[in-house]
């Protein structure tokens, strides 16, 4: 069972397509593991065993009949609980939506199920993808197995924890100001925020329309590319979706980085902010590793990190307040403390503030594009610090401003967070690789080269067999 818990999507697919692993056996092993481990780590809001078992049986029957659909056929996944699964509640981890049942599935859920995936359940999130970690909600927050009781990042916290504890090989998160990449960084897994418009958001509860992305979360880069392949594509009914051809995201994985030009944005973590010394060492070390692998790594400057942060936070606050205003007006007590305060910020912003932030966004996007001319990718940090204890509210609150993820929500560029080592105490460190719009394949290429050269992704949390 241990081996099944840590199987990658790619390895599971090889075994399943070769009829050496039954989807039913795989699903049962993971369900048993969830039953055993989740009471401690709280990755799930709801496990959906009956649906998972039916899907696993159907997958097994189809594969036995020679109808293999591809790498996710019979492979288990989880959904952050702001993503609709037909017939089940989408609680958004909130009392406000405790009884809200989805009548249809989100487009990303449909795509996964069409690929033959087995949905194990709905995963913990910060309340409405903004308020957490919170202890005043109907469900407890997910807990990071790294360190044994730390903050797992958020808001896609359950997705990060489910992967880090071997409960599933792939999960979906969402990212408005870094919510896929934050738990990826804190849980030593891999999380991609795709290009804005690459993946449909229809059927996903919004936080901020113009900044929201659905993103794949896995334990390695190759699996992440496989998952994006399933998710990507134009959705004419999602106003933010772009009609841009879908690339082969695994095509460049093994091409290495020799000759690629990578811009190191060092001032984000040793200037605009000062990251934890081990995190600075990890990011500088990643630049050295890429140089040793043959990349031309040169330091570049973007706008100050705080400019992107102000822009992201104002747009997010204004749009989120618009979405939540009715509920904040009529049942404010049903929100947890953190979500209530964070969602209320938009009440104090004017229409001109919002439009100015959108004008700032256009300016920052143009400046960033110009700075990336002639480069294949950017390297910088994701989080400034390793995960703090989950019961240290002040330290957890500091995680939000001390990060370098918001620039890529503002600019819409694809950005991946991957493990980049550990502190002497064994806590995860991470880096981000960022690419030009629609060039996720190039982002994966650089990330995969670094990942394979360092092997950090192979490490498992102590005490989690």
């Amino acid at each position: 069972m241990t081996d099944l818990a840590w199987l990658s999507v790619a390895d599971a697919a090889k075994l399943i397509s070769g009829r050496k692993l039954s989807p039913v056996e795989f699903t049962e092993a993971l369900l048993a593991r969830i039953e055993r481990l989740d009471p401690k780590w709280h990755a799930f809001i709801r496990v959906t065993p009956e649906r998972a078992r039916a899907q696993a049986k159907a997958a097994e029957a189809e594969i036995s009949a020679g109808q293999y659909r591809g790498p996710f056929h019979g492979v288990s996944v989880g959904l952050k609980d702001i993503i609709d699964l037909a017939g089940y509640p989408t609680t958004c981890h909130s009392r406000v939506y405790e009884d809200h049942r989805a009548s249809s599935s989100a487009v990303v859920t449909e795509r996964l199920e069409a690929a033959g995936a087995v949905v194990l359940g709905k995963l913990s999130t910060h309340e409405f993808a903004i308020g957490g970690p919170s202890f005043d909600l109907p469900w407890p927050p997910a807990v990071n197995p790294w360190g044994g009781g730390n903050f797992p990042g958020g808001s896609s916290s359950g997705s990060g924890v489910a992967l880090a504890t071997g409960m599933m090989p792939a999960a979906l998160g969402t990212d408005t100001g870094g919510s896929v990449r934050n738990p990826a960084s804190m849980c030593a897994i891999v999380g991609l925020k795709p290009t804005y418009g690459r993946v449909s958001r229809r059927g996903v509860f919004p936080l901020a329309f113009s900044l929201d992305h659905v993103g794949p979360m896995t334990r390695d880069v190759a699996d992440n590319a496989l998952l994006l392949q399933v998710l990507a594509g134009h959705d004419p009914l999602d106003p933010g979706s772009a009609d841009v051809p879908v690339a082969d995201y695994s095509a460049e994985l093994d091409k290495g980085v020799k000759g690629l030009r990578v811009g190191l944005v060092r001032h984000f973590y040793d200037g605009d902010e000062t990251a934890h010394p081990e995190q600075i060492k990890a990011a500088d070390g990643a630049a050295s590793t890429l140089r040793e692998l043959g990349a031309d790594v040169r330091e570049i400057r973007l706008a100050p990190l705080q400019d992107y942060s102000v822009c992201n936070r104002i747009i997010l606050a204004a749009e989120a307040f618009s979405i939540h205003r009715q509920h904040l007006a009529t049942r404010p007590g049903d929100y947890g403390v953190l979500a209530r305060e964070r969602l209320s910020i938009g009440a104090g912003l004017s229409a001109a503030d919002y439009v100015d932030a959108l004008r700032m966004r256009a300016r920052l996007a143009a400046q960033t594009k110009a700075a990336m001319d002639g480069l294949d990718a950017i390297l910088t940090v994701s989080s400034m610090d390793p995960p703090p204890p989950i019961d240290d509210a002040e330290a957890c609150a500091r995680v939000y401003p001390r990060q370098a993820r918001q620039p890529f929500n503002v600019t819409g560029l694809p950005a991946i967070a991957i493990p980049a080592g550990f502190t002497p105490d064994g806590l995860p460190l991470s880096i981000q690789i960022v690419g030009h719009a629609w060039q996720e394949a190039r982002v994966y290429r650089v990330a995969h080269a670094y990942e394979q050269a360092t092997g950090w992704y192979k490490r498992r949390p102590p005490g989690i067999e």
Partner: protein
Amino acid sequence: MEQDEAARIAKAAGVTRLLEEHPDALRSALKGAAALAARLPKDFSPGEESAHVFRLPSVPEGQR
């Protein structure tokens, strides 16, 4: 933030109950909003447009 100012904003935003039941949360949020807005650029030229999300289809309806 002054009591009157918070009440005025809460009324304008339609969240008076929020102010009544959770005054500290709303005041803290409004303080945060003011701090953020103060950091916006002041040097936009008149023609510097926002990053729109609204787009009409590139091909007229019926010609797709």
